[in-house]
């Protein structure tokens, strides 16, 4: 069988990559995509723990289900906001959205 740590390490890698994406990217859409990667890692974690460690309650699985749902909603909402910004400012680049600072 596959040891639990393999999944967890994969999840950690995925999460870190997502984090990197959020930090390094300039496009709002790309940042959003990176966040999705992080959420994927979370889902993997939840399911892994559920199936390995607490199958009798499998809260993890349910949790993962909710994470995916929320993530989808999040994408929809975020894209609407990005679109709004783009309409007003003709950019989806987060670096350029800095009229408010200091």
């Amino acid at each position, binding site marked *: 069988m596959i040891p639990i740590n393999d999944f967890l390490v994969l999840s950690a890698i995925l999460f870190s990559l997502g984090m990197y994406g959020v930090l390094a990217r300039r496009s709002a859409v790309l940042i959003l995509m990176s966040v999705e990667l992080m959420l*994927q890692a979370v889902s993997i974690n939840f399911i892994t723990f559920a199936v390995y460690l607490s199958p009798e309650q499998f809260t993890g699985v349910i949790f993962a289900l909710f994470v995916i749902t929320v993530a989808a*909603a*999040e994408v929809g909402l975020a894209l609407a906001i990005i679109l709004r910004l783009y309409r007003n400012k003709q950019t989806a680049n987060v670096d350029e959205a800095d009229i408010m600072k200091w």
Partner: protein
Amino acid sequence: MTYEEGIFYLVAAITVIGALGVVLARNIVHSALFLILSLLAVAGIFILLAAEFLAIVQVLIYGGAVTILILFAMMLTRVRETPAAVDGPQRPVAALAAAAFMATSILAVVSTEWPGNTEKINVISLDQIGRALFTTWAVPFEIASLVLIVALVGAIVLARGEEGE
């Protein structure tokens, strides 16, 4: 190495490659495509975890809805496809931070002795999930529906073009 492990490593590799593609690709559309790859691979991981239902959900919601939404958004926002427009000046620091986090989290995960049987995957049936979802977890389920409504209403209110725009 059992064949299961073999498959796992393969799928995991695809996942990671996809993820790398998402965060590294210079072309934003490529990133989106990599994302699809990665998402699908994660669905594969779910299957390896015996959570087929979630894999399906994953494919449907992510592979379908989300990615299409993202591609739409890309087209609507006509992102300039220069590398400079894609990556920020913060890349080196970002890489360091992400690496540090990765090291920390992997270390933490590996050095933890998980309580319970860490070798055996337990199958959780769809029946169980469905039952739990509508009884035990009814409240979060309903709140989640509110979340979706909010997102929906919000997206409409915000994205909708107004008179005179």
